[in-house]
Structure formats: structure tokens, C-alpha cells
């Protein structure tokens, strides 16, 4: 902040000691309108942007840590300096999927070199169950184990290798009980982690009975390992009273604070959780980061020494939950044009051994079983099956992608059935006037955007011309087959748990004019801190560099929601804006008084206070203004708060408006498939995605591209495989294959939709962008099915479970060559 400081030094002068009157009243008036800012009333669709866009360079601001990333100076948890006597913790994991613990003999562990402490469930002073929403997740399994990889005990030793070796010395005897790995059988047997939920719109039975055509099919949609590059890690430093400071790679500091306090049986205020940045999260550090913090905190309190805990990659992969695999079924009735009239969709989420976030994950799958299409009179049922694997958890899209997969499968199947191009059938089924209410009763706002995106993409990608070329190619090519698909995305934005849709911020202006903003969101690479700094800079008329974020800390902004559900910028951006607006109003009120200026014409622009409506007649540098305000005893610190308006959902009726708005997008993928080997390549991808008025187009583009590739990986090469004993075989990057450099499509045209601000009063009319692009990857899967379908001259819509590995693609091709009866095609 040298420039600001210099300004201050250069121009500091005595300020008036006049204090603006009735500041308290002003503050009270502000808090009455929490979350509601000027100009934030909902506007009609397709209005012009409510604010002119600032200069483009600043708008596409680079990530606030970019220079630190590329020089290696960005610190992650394991890079943090720690006291020289810091201990290293490691966790002993169950080798059995289901059983009774008959012996847990840790004497040999205690005797291992370097071991300082060993803990089990018996040593926990407070809560033993650390289930984040519902109980079911013991910090250490005690009497019974319920998955391979479940923590049984932990050690603290003087070095990382010593801790790892010590864990192996444990004598563990577990009497096996029959494990359950089949979620369908579990659902049928009523083995559920949470009750089944249903959403019904209209008389779906009658719609099915009277429909001219009915199809039904089922599919398996695989799970996904987060594969954040920085694994689970924390560093816990005991404090001078009963508390701890927890540095953790973590998307949900407040929940970790709560759980650590409950485990230690101390008040929440004794625990401070801090995170500067994560080396990737993707949902995998929403609830799955807390257990390690609890373990390290207990060891730190017991030993009085700082404790590091960093899971080795294989332990991380085994012990933590993943994206839920789903078994989906549909039975849908449609007319001769392929337009859905109604039907029945069943989604079975494989939740693993405990509820974790599965209630909301399966809910979101149900909320997205329609994707962008009206289901007509429909029933959607979601089961939460209990199996003996790690408890599946949040992962970018949070069930939404798995729900969408069933209706996208149906679109392809219906198209083959009625002999139309799948794109034609997709377009006919889109939400439109008269068919614009979802099966859970929410009116689909901005649905014409979906049509516009598809039509623009159709043109820009030359869909129909390429469709013709591909047909000709496939007729002439026996082995290599090409496929093409356009799939849309409509994704609901808001936490479906209503109370989580709130956020806080804390803004300080220091006397040199530099600004510190803290908020409840965490930075995992998505550029949230960059966007927040941009928001504050914009509100205060400052340069980006004048605003800084230190770290997310529970003692600065309390009771925060997880950084999840794509909500980071929506919620925290509004809270930060609220805090900045309060400071701005205070400063302008002060300035009007102090400089004897007309309050109406005061504003903050480019680092200056500017007065006058037409001709500017007074300018005060920001640093001077701040200095004057300080001397005038004006508070230069403010909190901000935001709660999303309008949303509600009634679980009893399965109806409501769970989402503040929808984000839209679509992608076209072309693939080439070698039908002799199952190998394939994604040759070209075109994407058009809606982010409203972008807060930062460079960051948003990065989210769209990265989300697409991650979604593509989920549906293609990323395969989770367990052996018959429930042990995960794909426990590291040697066997679990996320996309790599060469998987980037050679032609990759990605654009953000411009000129369509959010119809709801989101932060500067932008839209959330974290999760929605993930589902653009579905077009790759659909294109693979299209290529396979060419083997039957597009008469058969081949089943293709996911991930569609070369193995699955080859086996599907073999089945089609052997005849449709063997392909298990849709009836």
C-alpha cells in the first residue's frame, strides 16, 4: 500500500473534529435492510446491465495468488512454519468393510520409535460422533467398523515416517459381518441412511397410461474421487487456555470449529479455524476435512504440542467419501414427436455407510432429474442406500450431475425410438411457456435463455452440417465411428438447505487507506478471493491492489456456511458489498459534513472522493479521506451480511422454490471411437455458458473449461473399482486416471454468454459458475453413445454405463455387433 501511504504522508492534514450526527441511527437503518441493496429489485429478463462494465483489463483480473502460485511462494498447509517440536499424526484405518472389533491392541504401536501418543475412541473427552448434519460418523470406530479405510486410532510421533510406520504395528482383529455393496439391494431391503423422498407433479400414472409411446431403462452412473492435488492436511497448535488454532485445508471452517470444540468438549470460542487457500477442494473438503482436524486437535491438547496431520494419498483416497454412484431408472411416456408427457424416475444414491450430506445430495439429484426439460406429469423418487463403503459426500454438482444423466439417457433413447436426431428431441422437450414449471413446483425463470444458447451453439458449431458429414463418414468406415451430441445444462443455484444461504463479511480500512476484507468463503482455486477483492474495490472506487484478503478465519467472520453449492461469490460477494457499502456511506456522510459538500453528489471513484453531479468541483484522495475520517473518530470497520431472499422448499409436499435462479449452458462434443479396441478421442468441443454479467470473465472461463474437463473425466476415464471385500483398488493416480494434458480436445471453443444479466438481484447480476459447467461433460458421453448407435444405423440406443472407459465402450460395441437383443437396449 505504498502509494496510499505516500499519499497520506504527503497530504495528511488536520481534519475537522466534527462528527456526523446520528451515525447510530444510520447504522440501524442499514441493518433493517440486510441483504437488500439499492437497485437490487428483481428486473425483467433481458434488461441492460444495471451498471456499466468497468475497464476490461481490471475485470479479467488475474487470480490474486497467481504470482505466488508460479513462484512456489503460495503456502499450503504442509508448507506452514510450525514449532520445532511439532508432532506428526497418522491414522490407523480398518482393513475390513463390516465387522465387530474384537481386539485393538496398540501396545506395539506405543513402543514404536518416535511415538509420543496413541488415541482411540476411549480417549475422546466430548462427542465421539462427528457426523456433520446427522449422526453416524464416529471419529474412531469403536465396536463396529463399517468400511475399509475407517479410522480406528491415531498416533502422534516425532516424524512423518515414524508415524506412518507406527500405525502398521497395530494388532487389529475384526470379526467379519456380511458386508453390503449393492445399493439397489440395499434400497429394496430398506437399508437407507435417510428416508426416501418424492416429488410429484400431476397425475403421472395416467400420463403413462395414456401416452402413445412408453420407454423404460436403467443406468449405472459411477462415482468420482475428488483428487484434489493437495491431500487432506491440517496443523493444530494448542493455545494457552483450553483451545486450539486449527490450520486446515477445508471448505467449511465453521463446521470444523464446531466439531473440534465438541470433540474436545470446550466452547466454540476456544477454537479458531483458519484457511488461506486449498490445493483443490471440489466438495471433498466440505465435510471430509473435519475428522483429521478433530484427530490432530485431540493429540495437540493431550501432548501440549503442535500436531501436523497429512494423509498419504492412498489413505486419503480410501478413508474419505467420493461422489455418489447412482443407479437410476426411468419409465417415460411421450408422443410421436418425442415430447415427454409424464412418467416415473427413480434415483438410488449409493451413500456409503453414513448419512453425511446424502440427504441433500440425493435431493439435488432429484431437483435435476429434469435437467432443462419439462417432465410433464411426473414422479421423481430418491432413495439413499446404505452400503459398506466410505460415506459418499459433496462433489461439484452435488448429485445434480447424477440426476441429469437419467433424463439425458432418456432423450437419446426417445430420439432413436421416434427416429429423430437427439438434438431435435431435446429441443422439443425444453421448458417453454406453458411448460415452465418443474416437477417440484418451481417456475423456470429465464427459460428462453436455454433456447437461445442451444440455437446459437447449433449455428456456431455447424451442428447439422457436421451431422451430415459424420453420417457419411460412418457409412464408409467400418472400425472408426464418429459421434456428435449437444446437451444442455440447467442448474439450480442456492443451498437446498435454506439456512445455509447466508454469509458474513468483515471489512477494515486502515489509516493508510489499505483495505482488509474477510468473509466466510474459502479459496480453493476458484478465484473467490479475487472476486471478493474486486467487489470491494468496486464499491470503494479503489484499485484491486488496495484490497487484500488475509485468510478465512472463524474468529473474524463467525457461523459461516461451507464454500459449496457454487454459492461462494453470490453469498460472500453480497456480504462484502454490504460491508463496503456501509463504510462508503459512513465516509460519504462524514465527508459531506467535514468538507461541507453536497451529500447527494458524493462518490468514490478511482481512488478519490469526488463531489458534484455534473462538473466535478472537489476531489479528495482516498488516503486523505480515510485519515480525516479516522481523526474525526469514524469507525473504519464494518461487518456485512446477506441472506438469499425468496427461496423456500417444503419437504412434506415436495414442492417449492428451492433455487434463487438457474444457470444455463450447453456443449457440443464430437468423438471418434475405435470400435475394435474401445479407444476414443474427443475431437472437438463447443461450449456456450451463461454466467449472467460476469464478475471476472477470465476466472469464469477457467471454471467453465475446468468444470467441463472434470465432468468429462467423471464420465470417461475416472473409474473407481473395489474388490469383493470392499477394498478400493483404484487408490491413487497410478490406477485412478483423471484427464491429463493430451485429453484436452484439439478444438475447444468456449464462450461465455454475454448480454444476459441475471434476472435476480445477485451480486452485480452475475451467476454462480462453480458447478454448472461440470455437467457440460455429459455431451461427451452422449456423443459416445451416438457413435456406438451408428453400428445399428441409429436404430438402437445402446446402454452405456459410466465411466465409459474404453472397456465399457468396447463391450457395448461388441454387444451391438452381436445383435440388439444382446445390447440390453431400451424397450
Amino acid at each position, binding site marked *: 500500500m505504498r502509494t496510499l501511504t505516500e499519499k497520506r504522508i504527503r497530504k495528511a492534514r488536520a481534519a475537522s473534529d466534527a462528527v456526523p450526527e446520528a451515525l447510530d441511527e444510520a447504522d440501524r437503518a442499514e441493518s433493517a435492510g440486510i441483504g437488500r441493496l439499492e437497485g437490487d429489485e428483481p428486473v425483467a429478463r433481458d434488461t441492460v446491465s444495471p451498471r456499466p462494465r468497468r475497464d476490461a483489463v481490471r475485470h479479467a483480473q*488475474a*487470480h490474486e*495468488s*497467481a*504470482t505466488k*502460485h*508460479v*513462484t*512456489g511462494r*503460495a503456502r*499450503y498447509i*504442509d*508448507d506452514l512454519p510450525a514449532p520445532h517440536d511439532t508432532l506428526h499424526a497418522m491414522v490407523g484405518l480398518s482393513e475390513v468393510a463390516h465387522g465387530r472389533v474384537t481386539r485393538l491392541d496398540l501396545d506395539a504401536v506405543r513402543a514404536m520409535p518416535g511415538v509420543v501418543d496413541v488415541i482411540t475412541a476411549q480417549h475422546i473427552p466430548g462427542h465421539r460422533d462427528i457426523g456433520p448434519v446427522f449422526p453416524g460418523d464416529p471419529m474412531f470406530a469403536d465396536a463396529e467398523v463399517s468400511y475399509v479405510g475407517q479410522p480406528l486410532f491415531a498416533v502422534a510421533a516425532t516424524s512423518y515416517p515414524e508415524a*506412518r510406520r507406527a500405525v502398521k504395528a497395530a494388532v487389529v482383529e475384526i470379526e467379519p459381518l456380511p458386508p453390503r455393496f449393492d445399493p439397489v439391494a440395499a434400497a429394496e431391503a430398506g437399508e437407507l441412511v435417510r428416508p426416501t423422498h418424492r416429488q410429484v407433479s400431476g397425475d403421472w400414472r395416467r400420463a403413462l397410461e395414456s401416452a402413445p409411446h412408453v420407454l423404460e431403462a436403467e443406468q449405472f452412473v459411477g462415482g468420482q474421487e*475428488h483428487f*484434489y*492435488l*493437495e*491431500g487432506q492436511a491440517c496443523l493444530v497448535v494448542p493455545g494457552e487456555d483450553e483451545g486450539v488454532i486449527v490450520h486446515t485445508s477445508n471448505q467449511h471452517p465453521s463446521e470444523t470449529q464446531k466439531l473440534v470444540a465438541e470433540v474436545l468438549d470446550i466452547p466454540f470460542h476456544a477454537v479458531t479455524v483458519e484457511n488461506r487457500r486449498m*490445493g*483443490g477442494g*471440489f466438495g471433498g473438503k466440505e465435510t471430509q476435512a473435519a475428522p483429521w482436524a478433530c484427530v490432530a486437535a485431540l493429540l495437540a491438547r493431550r501432548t501440549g504440542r503442535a500436531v501436523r496431520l497429512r494423509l498419504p*494419498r492412498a489413505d486419503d483416497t480410501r478413508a474419505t467419501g467420493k461422489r455418489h454412484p447412482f443407479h437410476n431408472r426411468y419409465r417415460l411416456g411421450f408422443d410421436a414427436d418425442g415430447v415427454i408427457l409424464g412418467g416415473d424416475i427413480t434415483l438410488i444414491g449409493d451413500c456409503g455407510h453414513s448419512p453425511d450430506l446424502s440427504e441433500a445430495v440425493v435431493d439435488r439429484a432429484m431437483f435435476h432429474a429434469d435437467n432443462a426439460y419439462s417432465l410433464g406429469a411426473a414422479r421423481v423418487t430418491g432413495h439413499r442406500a446404505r452400503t459398506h463403503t466410505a460415506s459418499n459426500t459433496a462433489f461439484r454438482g452435488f448429485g445434480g450431475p447424477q440426476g441429469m444423466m437419467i433424463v439425458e439417457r432418456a432423450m437419446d433413447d426417445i430420439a432413436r425410438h421416434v427416429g429423430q436426431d437427439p438434438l431435435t428431441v431435446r429441443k422439443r422437450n425444453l421448458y417453454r411457456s406453458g411448460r415452465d414449471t418443474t416437477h417440484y413446483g418451481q417456475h423456470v425463470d429465464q427459460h428462453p435463455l436455454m433456447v437461445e444458447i442451444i440455437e446459437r451453439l447449433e449455428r456456431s458449431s455447424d451442428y447439422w452440417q457436421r451431422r451430415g458429414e459424420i453420417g457419411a463418414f460412418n457409412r464408409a*468406415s*467400418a*472400425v*472408426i465411428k464418429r459421434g456428435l451430441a449437444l446437451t444442455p445444462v440447467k442448474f439450480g443455484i442456492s443451498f437446498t438447505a435454506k439456512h445455509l444461504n447466508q454469509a458474513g463479511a468483515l471489512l477494515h480500512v486502515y489509516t493508510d487507506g489499505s483495505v482488509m476484507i474477510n468473509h466466510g468463503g474459502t479459496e480453493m*482455486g476458484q478465484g473467490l478471493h479475487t472476486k471478493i477483492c474486486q467487489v470491494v474495490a468496486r464499491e470503494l472506487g479503489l484499485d484491486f491492489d488496495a484490497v487484500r484478503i488475509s485468510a478465512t478465519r472463524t474468529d473474524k467472520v463467525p457461523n459461516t456456511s461451507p464454500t459449496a453449492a457454487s454459492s461462494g461469490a453470490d453469498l460472500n460477494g453480497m456480504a462484502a458489498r454490504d460491508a463496503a457499502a456501509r463504510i462508503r456511506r459512513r465516509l460519504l456522510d462524514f465527508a459531506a459534513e467535514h468538507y461541507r459538500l453536497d451529500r447527494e453528489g458524493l462518490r468514490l471513484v478511482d481512488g478519490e472522493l469526488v463531489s458534484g453531479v455534473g462538473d466535478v468541483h472537489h476531489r479528495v484522495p482516498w488516503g486523505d479521506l480515510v485519515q480525516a475520517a479516522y481523526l474525526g473518530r469514524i469507525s473504519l470497520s464494518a461487518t456485512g451480511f446477506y441472506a438469499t431472499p425468496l427461496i423456500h422448499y417444503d419437504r412434506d409436499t415436495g414442492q417449492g422454490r428451492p433455487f434463487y435462479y438457474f444457470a444455463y449452458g450447453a456443449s457440443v462434443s464430437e468423438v*471418434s471411437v475405435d470400435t*475394435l*479396441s*474401445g479407444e*476414443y*478421442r474427443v475431437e472437438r468441443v463447443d461450449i456456450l455458458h451463461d454466467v449472467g454479467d460476469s464478475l471476472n470473465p477470465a476466472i469464469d*472461463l477457467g471454471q467453465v*473449461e*475446468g468444470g467441463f474437463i*472434470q465432468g468429462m473425466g467423471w464420465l470417461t*476415464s475416472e473409474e473407481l473399482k473395489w474388490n469383493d471385500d470392499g477394498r478400493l483398488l*483404484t487408490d*491413487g*493416480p*497410478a*490406477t485412478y*486416471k*483423471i*484427464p*491429463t*494434458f*493430451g*485429453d*484436452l480436445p*484439439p478444438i475447444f471453443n*468456449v464462450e461465455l454468454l454475454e448480454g444476459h444479466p441475471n434476472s435476480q438481484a445477485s451480486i452485480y447480476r452475475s451467476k454462480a459458475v462453480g458447478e454448472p459447467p461440470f455437467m457440460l461433460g455429459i455431451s461427451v458421453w452422449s456423443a459416445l453413445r451416438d457413435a456406438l448407435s451408428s453400428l445399428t444405423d441409429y436404430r438402437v440406443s445402446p446402454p452405456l454405463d459410466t465411466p465409459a*472407459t*474404453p*472397456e465399457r465402450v*468396447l*463391450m457395448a460395441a*461388441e454387444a451391438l455387433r452381436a445383435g440388439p437383443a444382446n445390447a440390453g437396449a431400451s424397450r
Partner: protein
Amino acid sequence: MIEFFLNGQHRRLAAAPDTSVLELLRGPLAQRGTKEGCASGDCGACTVAIARPDGDGSFAYRTLNACITPAHQLQGTHLVTVDGLARGDALHPAQSSMVACHGSQCGFCTPGIVMSLFALHEQQRALPHQVLDNHRLEAALGGNLCRCTGYRPIRDAALSMGERSDTRPPWAEDPTLKRAVRDLSPAVAVEDQSGYLTPTTLAELTTAMQRHPEARLVAGATDLWLEVTQRLAQFDTLIDLRQVEELRQLEEVADGWWVGAAITYREWEPLLTTHYPAFAHLLTRLGSAQIRNRATVGGNIANASPIGDTPPVLLTLDARVRLAGPDGMRELPLDAFFLDYKQTALAPGECIAAILLPRPGDGHEQRVWKLSKRREDDISTLLGAFRWRLQEGVLQDVRVAYGGMAAIPLRVRAVEAALEGKAPDEQAFAAARRALQQSLTPMSDARGSRDYRATAAANLLERWRLTLARAALDEPTQEVTLDAYAH
């Protein structure tokens, strides 16, 4: 004691034999810019670059995975890490390009990507007219996983490095550095060999092996080190093969080339590109640049994994191995080397000294097809290698070998017999497929099911038939394989 230079600074320090470069960096050297992502050489987050004086006077920076490289292999090198590229606030082009292209999101893989870009930038500086095509980009970056960006901005960063200000790292302008590195011994000083032995001659090697029969041999360490990082093995004594002169030689003889067992994949590449393009193409899909810069074919053979990539290919080429032991040398056809799962013909005290790559005969043709879940940096689910000669319309000298289809890499003689002397028609290949099914019983594992392996292995024979049929009609063979997999 290990003596080397780190970002231009002389370093001399002691380490246990089973210490990795990454542990040395993040621990005693307190250089934490280099990250651990997987500790198995698969993600590239820990990528660093080293240069050592080569015999031909070159001093090129090559990437490696610090997590699975023994710290002692830094002896006599210049190690460059992400911490050592910028000149004060002035970023190296590998860094400024990443910032300008928005190439980092969470930033955790970024140090590794920057180092791969640095090595690529060094190559471009040395050969500025070389086109930076997809092949070279993939070769440079295929071993660096990024979970956030989807790679497009990283590709842009790679392509635009040349447009950035060519800021040189501070050490690059130290005229004494190269000489100082050259002056270091390439081998750990004998009096300092505290468990990490670096013999420089075959005689020293066999003596060391006799003296330490329990010691493991290490060359590239790309597989051995997984025992340390994944299975917590502790090695009190290791014998490094990389300085053994006889194991570093490439000798041309009448019937081919004897290639020293400690020669890396990268060093094999020119020979294979000239004589066996299909084999050379396979190398582009074997591991990553970081792996190919370290790993050796000798290690791939000695390791005797059923899914090693080179053994099936070498089997079809009638390769031979030269084994060195206390009683001298002996030679063996590679076919006789693999006995059973991870069992080889190596006697105690013996090691592989060299591999004979036979000279291709007239009219010789070869195809190598590797099937894996991911094209780059993946281990074979199965691999089929085929060699033949077409003489007067019939197949001659047919060799067929598979990896991933049995407990060892295996020549399938029944398939060879079904095709030898036959015209490459549907009938002959139908017989070959039947022979294959009767000969091999693959297993199911994380990489693929038994059914898939059996089906795909048979389909590779069909692909081979189609290739021959198209060639006979002078038609392009691309249509039977995807471009990205064609060679």
C-alpha cells in the same frame, strides 16, 4: 555426503540412503515451493529439473519427479526448483506465461507445471526453430496433472512462453556454475558412501553386490521408490547402477545394438526412432517425460511385471539379455528370462548388464498397440506387439507377444504358428484368434476385466489383419486406428 548445486548454490549434506529428493528439499533444505501430490511419480506436482554434464559436453535440464528420485542421485548435478527461477520480482517466462494465461487456479500443481515449462523453454532456447507441436507439448506436459484448469490455459502458456520477456534465472548468468558442477564427482565419494553405493565399473558393482547381498539395485528408481513411499520399505543399503560405465554403453554390433541396462528411455529414443518407429511411438505413451528421463529398459525387464510396456515388444524382436554376475557374463534370449510372476532367470549376485536390440531384417514390419484407460501416462491394461515379414503374399517370421494377458510378458507361439507361412486372410486370423483364446487366460483387476482383456486382445489381431488388408490395397491404414494412436 551428497554434493550438488541447488538453484546455483553449492550444497553438501548427508542423507539416509532411502531419502528422496523431495524429502531433502522440503525437510533439511527448507525449500517448500516443490509440492507432494501423490508420492508415486504419477501427478508431477513435485517436478524439478536437473542438469548434469553429459559426455557430449551438453548440459541440459531434464525434469524428474522429486518424490521418487533418490536424494543421492543429485550428486554432481545442478538441481533447479520453482524457488530458483524468478529474478527478484521478474518472473521467468515459464512463470509470467502462466500468470498471463490464467494457468493456475488452486496453484498446487503449478510449481510442477512451471518446472516442466521451464525444461521445455530450455529446449526451445537450445533449438529455437523446432516447432512446438502437439506431440512436443504432450511429451513435455503429459506427466503433470491439473485438476482445476482443464489444461487449455496451460497449453496457451506453453505456446506463448517465447513471446514473454526472456528473464534468465540469477544462476543462469553465473559463468562459473557449469564448470563448478562439472568439477563435482558424478559418484558419491567412496568414503561418504553411507549405505548408498555408486560403483563406477562392473567389477566394483559385482563386488558391491557380493558384499551386500541384501542390497537392492537402483537405476531410475521409478518403481523401486514406490516401495519406500507406498509400502514404507526402509533401505539401509542401495547400489546405484547409473554410474557403472559398462551399463551406460551403447555398442553397435553386426546383428544389432547392445544397449546398456542403465540407459534411460529418453536415451533409447533416437535409436528406436530410426529403426523401430512403432517401438519409439510406444515410448511416448510410457510414463511421462519425468519418468522417461530416469527409468531404464533394464529396470523394466528386471522388474518382470506382467504389464511392463517394453518386454512384449522386445520379445517380438528376439531381443537377448546379457547378465553380469560374480562368474562373469552370460547371455540369454529374453524369452527365457521371464519364469513366472515377478520371477526371472537372474541368479543371486547377477544383474542385467545390457540388452541386445536386434537389427531389423529386410521387409520387417512391426506394430505395437497399447490399450489403457488413459492415453498418456498410464500403465497398460494390455499390450499387443506384432512383428512379421510379408513375402510373396504370406506371413513369415511372425512374432506375437502380449503384456497384461498372463503372469509374465509372453510370446504366444500358438498364434505365431497359426499365422506363419499363411496368407493374411480372414481364415488364418480366425485360427489365430482361436489359438489366442486357448493360450491365454487373463485376469481381472483395477485396470480391466478378464472378458475385456480377452476380447480386446483378439480384436488387436483383427486390427492387424485389417492393417495388412489395407496395405495390400495401398489404402491408408489410419481408418483402422485413431490418429492419436496411429504410428
